[in-house]
């Protein structure tokens, strides 16, 4: 691709950001707040050392969740169920991981494997329903989210609850020390700040693995051509049903990792406060980052930044929910502009091709 077209393709998120901030400013003005001051406060708070660690910690599960969603998106499969999948994986892994103790690397690896397996199996149900029963994955994964939530709240009280605990609310037993992921603060000389989750490394590896899987392997090639043209993919010998299940399971497998950042690095157990909503946020990040490992990284950091920095707003008498609006605007506008820019680039290529053929 020509350099000018590459630059054009970067312009969509920047335009979307600008418009979204513009719209949010209008809303702030409307409710009688000063937008420039508001954003300034957010920015200043967001770049404090403490905030930066928090932002990175938040962006880890967001990023992995986006990758889980993106695996499906790449083949035109909409896994809206990352939400339910990671919660199911997290609770089972949290419980089983708390029942024994072996040396740390093995213990953590084991917890990871359980979470990945459980989430992948939960996702496989949607794959099965699509292949065998023709139920669109958007509907089935949404329904499975609700079913998963019900099952989790049941099993948290009745199956996985810590026995003999004095704590009033249900929660799983705490992971033994060997099952807790060490923080990275020593590595970066951040001893005076809160823990920087060790799962950051896993997230980076997941990003690289995702890139290799989708852009370098034959499986990834199959995913991509099925996403672009499912009929041609079928004629090229791909078994679409098999691929749907494979993609769904892979996506669910990635989803299994989403909850582990918070679980291994901070909560060390599954409680009713365990973070939810990461699956839906992941969809937004995947759309913003256009399923690209780097783009999604930036997207995850951006959303984490907005979330963190908005926390200060309530103290300044601005509703912090403006941040939700801002995120939603960015998302909606960016998908529109990606489409506009994509069309523009294709048009340019056609023009170039016909020009060169003539000469």
């Amino acid at each position: 691709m020509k350099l000018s077209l590459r630059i054009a393709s970067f312009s969509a998120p920047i335009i979307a950001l600008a418009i979204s901030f513009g719209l949010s400013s209008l809303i702030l003005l409307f409710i009688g707040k000063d937008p420039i001051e508001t954003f300034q406060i957010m920015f200043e708070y967001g770049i404090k050392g403490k905030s930066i660690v928090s932002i990175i910690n938040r962006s880890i599960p967001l990023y992995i969740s986006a990758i889980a969603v993106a695996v499906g998106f790449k083949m035109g499969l909409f896994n809206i169920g990352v939400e339910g999948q990671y919660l199911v994986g997290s609770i089972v892994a949290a419980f089983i991981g708390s029942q024994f103790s072996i040396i740390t690397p093995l213990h953590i690896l084991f917890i990871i494997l359980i979470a990945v397996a459980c989430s992948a199996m939960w996702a496989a149900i949607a794959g099965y329903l699509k292949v065998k029963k023709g139920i669109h994955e958007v509907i089935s994964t949404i329904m499975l989210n609700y079913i998963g939530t019900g099952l989790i709240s049941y099993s948290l009280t009745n199956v996985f609850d810590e026995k003999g605990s004095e704590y009033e609310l249900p929660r799983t037993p705490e992971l033994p020390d060997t099952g807790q992921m060490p923080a990275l603060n020593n590595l970066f000389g951040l001893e005076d700040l809160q823990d920087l989750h060790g799962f950051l490394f896993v997230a980076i590896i997941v990003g690289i693995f995702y890139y290799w899987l989708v852009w370098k392997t034959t499986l990834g090639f199959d995913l991509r051509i099925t996403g672009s043209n499912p009929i041609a993919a079928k004629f090229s010998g791909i078994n679409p049903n098999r691929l749907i299940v494979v993609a769904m399971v892979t996506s669910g497998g990635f989803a299994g990792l989403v909850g582990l950042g918070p679980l291994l690095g901070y909560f060390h157990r599954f409680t009713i406060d365990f973070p939810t909503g990461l699956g839906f946020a992941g969809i937004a990040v995947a759309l913003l980052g256009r399923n690209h490992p780097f783009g999604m990284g930036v997207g995850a950091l951006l959303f984490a930044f907005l979330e963190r920095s908005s926390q200060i707003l309530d103290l300044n008498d601005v509703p912090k929910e403006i941040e939700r609006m801002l995120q939603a605007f960015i998302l909606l506008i960016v998908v529109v502009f990606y489409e506009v820019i994509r069309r523009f680039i294709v048009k340019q290529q056609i023009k170039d091709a016909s020009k060169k053929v003539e000469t």
Partner: protein
Amino acid sequence: MTQNIFRSIFRRYIVITPILLVLIVAQMEEYSQLTTSGTFGAAIRLAIPIMLAGLGGLYSEKTGVVNIGLEGMMIMGTWFGAWGGFTFGAWQGVFIGMLGGALFGLIHAIATVSFQVDHIVSGVAINILAAGVARFLNVIAFEDIAFASSTASPRITGDIGKLTVPYLAGGNINGEETSNFFGYIEDLNIFLVSDFAGLVLGFLSNISHLTIFALAIVPLSVLVLWNTPIGLQMRSVGEYPTGSESLGVNVYLMKYIGVTISGALSGLAGAYLVIAGTGIYLEGQTGGRGFIGLASMLFGNYKPFGILMGSGLFGFADALQLRSPKAVHGLLVIIAIFLFVLALKTLFEKKYIPSLISLVLSSGFLIWFLNSESIPNQFVYFTPHITTLIVLSFSNQRIKLPEKIGVPYKKGELS
């Protein structure tokens, strides 16, 4: 010949067996809640939002635009309905809720029709946007008002009004109570007859005016979509927009109208939840009903009365979980028998493995039924969602989709 009869019975088993089973189980004292007028009344109240969302889906998809954003538009309906209901009164709330939904329908139309964004991507974005907007609006609109929080609105003012038909259901005439014909029959407890009377009574007694308004949209939709020029044009752009454009149909306009109506109906669905239901806006109140509406549209094979039937089914499942967890327990035995019938059917078709699986599941449900008194309420909570999956799994797979559903259309691409 006999084989044919068997076949035609088996083909309808998905509809026949559950109805039959519900009727039989309902005869037991313990599970009599299954078919009382109260349950049916609740089923109707719960079915209406799903039906409206389903009809919303119909208007959008008939014009070729997939609308996953129904849920988000419904969220808008709940909030704007509550805000309008609180500020101006019940009917005004209904209207404002519809406007809120329509606005989001319009946004979906702009993205998918004018900018040709992938319909599902746009729908997903709409859902996320709606959740954010509703939260934000709730915070700023009810900042200093008592009984409101960041996730709940204050109670609406005014009342939408209810109707009980006189003579048949014991409604009042000039302030005097009249006889209650169907109520009398229901109390007789005659097999089938009383159950049916319960169903009719559910429709005639204590029925919100908003319910009547919503039900009227079903036949109205048939008329509009199939018997008017605008309806024909709307359906045609979902089938073959290029052809429609060549005949001077304004394809974009039709899609805009379809998707905006879709939003308005979803908004109405949301407003209904608030105004005929809770009386306040609650975050997360829609609970996936927009998606269940989509499911009812598929179940109803893109026909308004089919959608009514489908949503009735989902509403019934929902009603049971609300009114009587006990009755849901009765459902276990129904599922067990149903799976057993399925096992027989697959055995008859010589599909041994599915048959075995059905048999095992069937025994599982039976054992569960026998060894428990009730279903844990966490399970009751997802009854409608699991019903959705089960119903879609067994319902007709030969749905006649609009031909160009989900395909972006660019104006002026006449070949």
